[in-house]
């Protein structure tokens, strides 16, 4: 599989299971039969009423034929799914087609239109995927699939899909392209990368990924090359929630709320019904918990998301005050003696008195003043929550964490679970040590990790960004390049749409255009998007329906599993996956890289999956079993109360007990703790307890050596901060606490806070090219409370000008960001201005204006731009526009905006919306580096 495509790949592809009912495949009836045709099964089966003959049948046939539309002109590919052939003139005889699911091949796969990675089944007929459905064998998604998953057909078959490599021929960013061969592309890339390697600065090759589910393949390539400059979007996503979880748990950054078994679900700003990394599996279990188990769902969110709107109670706090509310609830629980004394005493590293003392100032009245949520409601919900313990859990995500104070918000929220003892309990706040795949599967040997360092990958100013996990501070990459804090020789982007999804669109574009800052840029993507636009070479990537992976997410069943992503069809055109061309590239670069690519892809997958045990019913194991079933889940016990697990005799061999703490140490590493005279596992933290007080974060913030704490936790991959961080100290409160960004505390009467949100049919910059999703949501007017609108004399559909300001909190806390490049208005630094229409809604806090992400593309196909006709842009030489022509789009697309930017001619619900990232500043949380997407202060004025 290392060399070119055809034969071997073909046979490997055919491993996909042939199943489905067997029957004779009848050709679809084609146009040409008149309505009097007797070929109707219905007519034959049922007979017709006696009167039917002389009455209407066939009447007015002539007229009908005249009235009928012209059949769709579908491309050379013919009868392609998603081109609306049914029940159009071509096949109107037989619809729905009773033979559709006869003689189909069912091929397992894993969706990748969001990061939830639900198991799928592709129904394949005549080498075409005709339908995608959920795989019922997937223990996480249980066979469900969201709207995005179904639109995978649009992703696979699209007239503007990239199918051939491109080389830039005009200036960078000018959009002029020439089609080239893979040989030319690979040779040129290999030459450039070899030069980087030969320069002795391998870290100047940066790999920048968007969502990626081929972790092993990328790590293998970068480690073999010798660069650690692997950039990601984690800080744009989930850094604070992960960091907060890690302070308490160390072994996991991902709380898995056991909502299916809960009685009370307290949601701070998560929109699990529409988005969330656990979207479908999590949402299914929330509803199951509510409607099968009697759980109550209470949501705090500044905006009425579908989750908030479908909750039993919704409260709209002032933005970013989730942590204050949570601390006030903690206060109430302690004050009313509703805490779990046993859990606090046995399993936290603070005493009841310490907690009471620490929480004494965080009264519900204090929180009411800050958040606007009444002290009575805060108190009541705290009592309800504690009454349901231990079957109660908080849940949160970007709503609470994507703030400048997000780390503290999430730490405060998660503390609630410890106070009531729901940590690790059935129906409570759980986690697992397995973030993804069951460790039973192991890749062939990996190269040793690269040892380079780059400020882009490890900015020293953010102490928790990389200390437990490499979360990085993605939003800073372009700013640091602009500030000359790092240099690049080569830049490879992969499934990335940074100008659209990164804050400060114009800065991102500026840096991507500048050949001095980015001398060579290779973009790997299925579509020509806003990142590819600034590349020098664009490589057509195979879709997730055409490539191989083993994949899994942190599982809500609290035990790991293994899912197989396998090609449903051969990759279209000349599109290829990195598993297919990285070996070729590595061999061309040489210098030892090639030694890590000994196996063929088939051998690699077989070896990787070989740990999957035999199914006694079919006798198949490993890859063969996965090819039949798609997913395998082991029979491990769910990860409940792991801290109570007793240690075995063999665990305890050679161990000693540290008397004052009871921590059990073996070979210098913590393995457990003595509780009530018995050796148990405890938490994987330095104290072996749930660390309410984290000395580690305090010391790490100050660049102190933490090797003793790390050893006791047993999580030895954690490291103290490197010397490169010296001098970059950050005060981190070891206790859960809270602060308010100063621009929020001092919000002026004419200012609003702009928040961001996701739609249930979209996923950042990666789904607007899918017509069935774009039809549902294609535009994003700004949400405004009617009372606020009234104040500005605005009505639904009016246009406003938004002006956004840089954070004064960041100016004080993060002077290293040095944003003197931003213009000033009065005393404030201005990030951007933009004109958008508004929609008035009761579902939003009056001091908030909300805009969704995912909208406002200016590349990424005509679908994403809401234009009926593809542009004449030269990048289309990389597509087969006629072969995959979509006449349904050309004919029936109804939301094109023809107003030409004139608000007076604009019609609501048309066009492709606006990119909110024109307005959002680069704003990393000073502790973890997570981008604060929900904090931007704006002013608005009516456009008349």
């Amino acid at each position, binding site marked *: 599989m290392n060399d070119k495509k055809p034969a071997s790949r073909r046979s490997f592809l055919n491993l996909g299971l042939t199943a489905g009912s067997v029957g004779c495949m009848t050709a679809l009836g084609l146009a040409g039969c008149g309505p009097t045709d007797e070929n*109707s099964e219905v007519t034959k089966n049922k007979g017709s009423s006696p009167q039917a003959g002389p009455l*209407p049948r066939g009447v007015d046939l002539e007229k009908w034929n005249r009235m009928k*539309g012209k059949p769709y002109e579908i491309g050379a590919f013919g009868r392609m799914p998603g081109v609306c052939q049914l029940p159009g003139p071509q096949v109107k*005889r037989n619809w729905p*087609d009773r033979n559709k699911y006869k003689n189909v091949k069912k091929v397992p796969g894993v969706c990748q239109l969001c990061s939830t990675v639900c198991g799928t089944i592709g129904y394949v007929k005549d080498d075409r995927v005709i339908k995608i459905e959920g795989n019922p064998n997937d223990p996480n998604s249980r066979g*469900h699939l969201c709207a995005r998953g179904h639109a995978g057909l649009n992703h696979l078959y699209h007239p503007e899909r990239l199918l051939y490599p491109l080389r830039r021929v005009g200036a960078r960013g000018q959009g002029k392209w020439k089609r080239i061969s893979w040989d030319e592309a690979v040779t040129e890339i290999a030459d450039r990368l070899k030069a980087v390697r030969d320069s002795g600065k391998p870290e100047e090759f940066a790999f920048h990924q968007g969502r990626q589910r081929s972790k092993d393949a990328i790590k293998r390539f970068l480690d073999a090359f010798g660069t650690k400059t692997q950039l990601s979007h984690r800080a744009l996503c989930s850094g604070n929630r992960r960091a907060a979880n890690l302070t308490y748990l160390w072994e996991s950054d991902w709380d898995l709320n056991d909502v299916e078994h809960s009685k009370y679900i307290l949601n701070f700003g998560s929109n699990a019904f529409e988005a969330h990394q656990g979207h479908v599996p999590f949402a299914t279990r929330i509803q199951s918990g509510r409607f099968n188990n009697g759980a109550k769902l209470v949501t705090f969110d500044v905006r009425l998301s579908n989750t908030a709107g479908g909750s039993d109670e*919704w409260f709209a706090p002032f933005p970013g005050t989730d942590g204050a509310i949570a601390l006030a609830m903690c206060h109430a629980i302690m004050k009313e003696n509703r805490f779990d004394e046993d859990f606090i005493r046995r399993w936290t590293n603070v005493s009841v008195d310490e907690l009471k003392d620490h929480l004494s100032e965080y009264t519900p009245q204090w929180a009411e003043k800050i958040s606007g949520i009444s002290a009575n409601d805060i108190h009541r919900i705290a009592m309800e929550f504690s009454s349901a313990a231990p079957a109660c859990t908080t849940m949160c995500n970007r709503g609470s964490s994507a703030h400048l104070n997000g780390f503290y918000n999430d730490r405060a929220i998660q503390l609630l679970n410890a106070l009531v003892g729901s940590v690790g309990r059935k129906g409570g706040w759980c986690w697992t040590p397995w973030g993804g795949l069951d460790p039973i599967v192991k890749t062939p040997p990996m190269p040793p990790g690269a040892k380079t360092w780059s400020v882009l990958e490890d900015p020293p100013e953010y102490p928790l960004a990389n200390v437990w996990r490499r979360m990085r501070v993605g939003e800073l990459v372009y700013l640091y390049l602009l500030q000359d804090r790092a240099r690049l020789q080569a830049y490879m982007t992969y499934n990335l749409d940074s100008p659209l999804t990164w804050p400060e669109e114009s800065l991102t574009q500026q840096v991507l255009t500048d050949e001095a800052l980015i001398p060579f840029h290779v973009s790997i993507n299925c579509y020509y998007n806003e990142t590819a636009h600034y590349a020098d070479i664009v490589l057509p990537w195979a879709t997730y329906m055409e490539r191989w992976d083993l994949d899994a997410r942190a599982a809500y069943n609290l035990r790991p599993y293994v899912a197989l992503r396998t090609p449903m069809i051969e990759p279209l055109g000349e599109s290829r996956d990195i598993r297919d061309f990285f070996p070729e590239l590595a061999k061309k670069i040489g210098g030892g890289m090639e030694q890590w690519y000994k196996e063929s892809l088939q051998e690699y997958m077989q070896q990787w999956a070989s740990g999957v045990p035999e199914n006694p019913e079919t006798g198949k194991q490993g890859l063969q079993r996965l090819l039949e079933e798609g997913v395998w889940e082991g029979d491990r016990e769910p990860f409940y109360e792991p801290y109570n697990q007793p240690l075995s005799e063999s665990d305890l061999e050679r161990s000693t007990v540290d008397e004052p703490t009871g921590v059990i140490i073996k070979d210098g590493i913590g393995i457990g703790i003595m509780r009530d005279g018995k050796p148990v596992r405890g938490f994987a933290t330095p104290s072996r307890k749930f660390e309410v007080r984290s000395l580690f974060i305090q010391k790490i913030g100050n660049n102190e050596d933490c090797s003793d704490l790390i050893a006791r936790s047993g999580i030895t991959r954690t490291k103290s901060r490197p010397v490169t961080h010296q001098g970059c100290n950050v005060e981190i409160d070891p206790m859960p606490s809270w602060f308010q960004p100063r621009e929020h505390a001092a919000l002026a009467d004419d200012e609003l806070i702009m928040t961001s949100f996701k739609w249930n049919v979209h996923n950042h910059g990666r789904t607007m090219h899918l017509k069935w999703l774009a039809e549902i949501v294609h535009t994003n007017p700004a949400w405004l409370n009617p009372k606020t609108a009234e104040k500005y004399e605005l009505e639904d559909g009016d246009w406003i000008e938004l002006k956004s300001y840089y954070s004064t909190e960041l100016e004080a806390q993060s002077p290293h960001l040095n944003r003197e490049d931003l213009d000033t208005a009065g005393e404030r630094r201005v990030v951007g201005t933009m004109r958008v229409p508004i929609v008035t809604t009761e579902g939003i806090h009056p001091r908030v204006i909300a805009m969704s992400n995912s909208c406002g593309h200016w590349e990424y196909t005509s679908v994403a731009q809401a234009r009926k006709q593809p542009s004449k842009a030269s990048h289309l030489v990389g597509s087969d526009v006629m072969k995959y022509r979509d006449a349904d789009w050309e004919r029936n697309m109804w939301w094109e905006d023809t107003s030409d930017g004139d608000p007076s001619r604009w019609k609501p619900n048309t066009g492709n919306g606006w990119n909110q990232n024109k307005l959002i500043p680069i704003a990393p949380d000073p502790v973890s580096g997570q981008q604060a997407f929900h904090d931007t202060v704006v002013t608005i004025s009516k456009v008349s």
Partner: protein
Amino acid sequence: MDNESIPRRGFLKDTASLLPVTTATATQSDTQLPSEDRFQPESFWQDRMQSPDDGKNYGWFIDTRRCFGCHACEVSCKAENDVPLGHFIRQTFYKDVGQYPQVARMFLPMACQHCEDAPCIKACPCGALHKESGGTVAIDYNLCCGHATCVDVCPYGAIYIDPVAKQAVKCHNCYHRTEEGMEPACVPTCPSEALYFGDLNDPNARINKAMEQVQETIELSQLRTEKETKPKMWFAGSAAAEVESDIPREGHSYSTEVYSVHNWKKQSSSNHSEMSD
């Protein structure tokens, strides 16, 4: 009923002499003409109102309390049936109820109710509308000539005219799937487990279990029972009542406007689109 419907109305008028129907003018039909006036003689449709005698009786149960409006059922349906843009076999309606800060969002997945006394079958001048196994109301495309009389009499706006074929299209319970032992495309995908389809005559069917369980605590409802079409779709939760006024009526089809965030708050939507051609 707006200008867009004129070509079709014109067509109906022109062909009236050939058809055993009482043709309504555009003005008349705006004011909800009693459907009976559009019905064919009973002898013409009585056979087609009978489903094959196989003991099956399909029905739908929608637990609107569980639905969170994810649109998975609609996109699965669109993919399954290759429904053109701007047209819909099923749609999920959103409605924000209440005033800030006491607001909730209702979700109502809607599609053909597969009425036992289906007015579309009675009105169809071509004899194309009929019942398949279990009472599934379906269309024979060898016969359908796109008169759209079915659209005019459907009290739920569940039928559209394909813009190219000029034929009626509606939910057919995915009989091409159920015959292969699969569920309709919208059902298994539902992440909220709000959609249930099955044989009401089978006590072990999932739908019956789900309905029984829900009925222990709450009453189920049906939509627009005053139309006396005996719909075979039951709802749990208040969304059906709250959203009812937004659901298209006779002469209308599901509209793109349903997806506009500007319309989630409206008490009633007056602009359900006609066929776009």
